[in-house]
């Protein structure tokens, strides 16, 4: 109650252009005991911000205080917000916080967080990630003090964080055939790294940009669909050269097996036309056999016979 009266009094004083009331004793002692850089210690912050402090023991950043071996600029409140001496002297106010995240530019937010997290393995590509380019900084997805989820201090459930900007992706996961993201079975980060990734090792290496790689250098699909990994004695080059998206829509599709076309033969024929200088031999991708009469339904279901379409050990035409 005493502090409340103090804040009211100092606010009224400031509004009348007068000098603020003298600091209460604990705060004055904190200012007097501040380091040369202006660090006063997190214990001072809890005096005026008990709501933040009350649940801070659940926060991963609390470790920086509990360990008691971090430097002041990497510990507790001031580890992120900067030295608080000026803020205490001014009796509060956002503008007196060296790093008030709601006032920082995205680049400044990024710099601030990367002071500690810049060398984490999953974030080493963050400066070149499309998110950083687009000004999507850490606090757009993470809520440091009020995260409602158990891990990673996300501002919302992970899929809702992503859907918040990628509404078209929400629609794809609402399709009849889809990966079970909405059902909570998998997360966006099972396949993507929102902090940036190295260049893809499939297609021409430029796209897609935020797909994490499995086993260090493969498409993330193979983390779960490990039977498609091989190595096979006879590889289907479509899988290895251009990747799974050559035939599949990874998020969701109206078509069975997440295929890009409703009928499988159209999918196959669009490449296997024998024309141009395409394919592994550079003279057109193998045309189907003349025995295949495309008027007949049996030839319109290519994978009825070419059952090992992702690669085969025993047949170069993927028949067994």
């Amino acid at each position, binding site marked *: 109650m005493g502090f409340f009266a103090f804040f009211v009094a100092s606010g009224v004083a400031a509004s009348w252009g007068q000098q603020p009331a003298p600091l209460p004793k604990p705060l004055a002692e904190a200012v007097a005991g501040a380091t040369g850089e202006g660090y006063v210690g997190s214990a001072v912050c809890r005096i005026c911000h008990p709501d933040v402090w009350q649940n801070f023991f*659940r926060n991963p950043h609390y*470790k920086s205080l*509990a360990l008691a071996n971090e430097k002041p600029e990497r510990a507790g409140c001031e580890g992120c917000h900067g030295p608080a001496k000026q803020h205490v002297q001014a009796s509060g106010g956002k503008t007196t916080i060296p790093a008030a995240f709601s006032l920082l*530019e995205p*680049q400044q937010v990024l710099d601030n967080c*990367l002071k500690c997290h810049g*060398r984490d393995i999953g974030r*080493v*590509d963050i*400066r*070149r990630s499309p998110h950083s380019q687009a*000004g999507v900084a850490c606090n757009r997805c993470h*809520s440091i003090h009020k995260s*409602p989820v*158990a*891990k990673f201090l996300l501002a*919302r459930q992970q899929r809702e964080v992503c859907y918040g900007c990628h509404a*078209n992706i929400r629609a*794809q996961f*609402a399709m*009849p055939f889809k990966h079970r993201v*909405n059902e*909570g*079975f998998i997360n966006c980060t099972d396949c993507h790294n929102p902090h940036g990734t190295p260049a893809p090792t499939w*297609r021409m*290496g430029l796209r897609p940009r935020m797909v994490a790689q499995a086993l260090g250098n493969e498409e993330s699909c193979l983390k779960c669909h490990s039977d498609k*990994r*091989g*190595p*096979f*004695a006879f590889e289907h*080059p479509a899988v*290895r*050269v251009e990747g799974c998206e050559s035939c599949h829509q990874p998020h969701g599709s*109206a078509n069975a097996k997440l*295929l890009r*076309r*409703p009928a499988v033969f*159209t999918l196959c*024929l*669009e*490449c296997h036309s024998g*024309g*141009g200088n*395409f*394919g*592994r031999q550079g003279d057109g991708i193998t045309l189907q*056999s003349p*025995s295949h009469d*495309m*008027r007949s339904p*049996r030839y*319109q*279901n290519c994978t*009825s016979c070419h*059952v090992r379409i992702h690669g085969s*050990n*025993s047949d170069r035409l993927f*028949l*067994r």
Partner: protein
Amino acid sequence: MKNLLLLLFPLTAAAQPTVAPTPEMAGSPRGENAGGYNVLNTFEFGYRFRTLGGNYGKYRSDVNFGNGVRLLGSQLRVNSREGHGRLFDEISLTTQGLGNDPYQSAVLRIERNRLYRYDLHWRLNEYFNPALPVADGLHLLDTRRRFQDHDVTLLPQSGFKLFFGYTRNSQSGPGLSTIQLFDSRGDEFPLFMDVQRRRNELRLGGEADIFGFKLNVLRGWDDFREDTPLRLRGGPEPGANPTDNNVLTSLRRLEPYQGESPYWRLLLVRNSRRFGMNARYVTVSGRRDFVFEELGVGTDRLGSARNRQITVSGSGSRPVASGSLNLSFVPVERLSITNHTSFHHARMDGGGTFRETDNNLSLPAVFNFQFLGIRSIQTLTDAVVALDKRVSFYGGYHWSTRRIRSREGQSFEGTTDFSTYTQENRLHSGLAGLRLRPSGGLTVQIDAELGRADRPFYPISEKNYHAINGRVQWRAGSWQLSAQSRTFYNANSVALWAHSSRSRQHSVDLNYTRSARVWVEAGYSKSHLDTKTGLAFFAASNLIEGRQSVYISNLHAGHLAVHLAPHARTDLYLGYSIVRDTGDGRPARSVLPPVAPESDTNAAGALFRAQTFPVSFQSPQARISLRLHNRLRWNLGYQYYGYREDFRILFDQNYRAHTGFTSLLWSF
């Protein structure tokens, strides 16, 4: 902060597309203190129910919720208040659907500051796939997948860390596949298979701070085994085509195999305010040895008795090396430049000796072999310039080259015949973008990308493409609006073989949050795709050229969610989502199955009919949650799933399902 809280709570609730579990919590939001720990927990036990009309297989493929009692969800968090727990400082456990749901998961973390951290992610998925359009209804999969990832980090907050990890991924369950016998014009026969696949991965690594760098080393061993026996479903099989004479009397196929992919990953990182670099190198040496044995007995298409045995033995290998170097410069506050250069080199080499014994006549052995080598190099340079707080530009130049080497052939009775090919492909691409913040609540972002490749690998690959993206986000008080538009056009024309693809996606989302008790969210998304691709195929042994595959999809998706909590004890959620593909606009009655009668010489007509797939999928839902006691809530939910397709492939796949649950949410 208050506004942020108000925003966070309802959006957390909105994150529940399926009708259970309930996102609300029971008990004190601050938890209970016990000893030096704070405990926060909720457990939701309940009963799911379902009634279904229509195609059960399609429902299982899309939704798959059934009847029965479950632990629909639970959360447990135990945290030491001072960060100096004796055995642990944190236990966090979140589960979903345990007991009987098709989507079950458990996420566990146990951590003791300074000493260790253990993470477990366990998941189970039961899935049914009728796959009608893929293999004429002859392929089915009723499968169960289990995933588990264990990761232990020792000394997690120190400059020297050790990592141990184990991953297991298994797939099991019955399925149907097909086999074609006894020659290339033979019939297809259904096969029963009992899928048994397992993948195990073991990881061991360490991380150390050395001279201002962070060095991370990881060694992994990945092992994959498959032992899926295949057999006939019962007695002799007549084959899928009734006009054929083929009969398969008995079949035995064994093809157990095991593959290994041990790998190394090295990472070196240095980061400072003005400069950052990281170098990454990964090498994987995949190898697989295999034996295949198949014995089929029956009658061929000419009516002759056949007894055919095939054995294949051989190996495949895929050594892979990947590396990248990432450099970041921040020379001045308002400018950052990054360069990323990477390479990838994979060599896939395999072969097998094929032996066939036909009616006790052994044919000469043939050794078939293939090699496919892919080497690619990319360099990507990007820059971001912030003119002031309101305007910033970004752009980049990306260059990529890929060399593909191919060799394939066979050895037969002492002679070897093979062909070797090499081709190179280069891609240049440029990106430019603008980000504006004209006012505090409004953000506008526009960018465009242009790419040119000289020799794409496939007719559908990217060659001459451009993409334009636009995004607007606006926040004002209780309102939040975001809209996005994205177009991607690609043209890949080589001589007469043309491919063009045009994709346009537009979406808008509106959110109104009056308070934690009242909020509304609505969104609409439109995705258009049209492609034209040159075709060549055979009909009645005649080569048909100059045709085009024309595919048009117009996908409309909408969702609406309303949350009302008239007072503290009652919580009501109403939601609706619909996805509708209107195809190319043809009325549904004109859309026929992709089958042309034998007399129809215009096979392109069949192709045309196959190119649109109008379908709708909608799901309204409602959920009410009542607080009975400070530690107890009662929940009731209902969700309807309606699937309708106007394009019948083999038989009607439409269904209507009423699902729901009732549960008690409890905290102790």
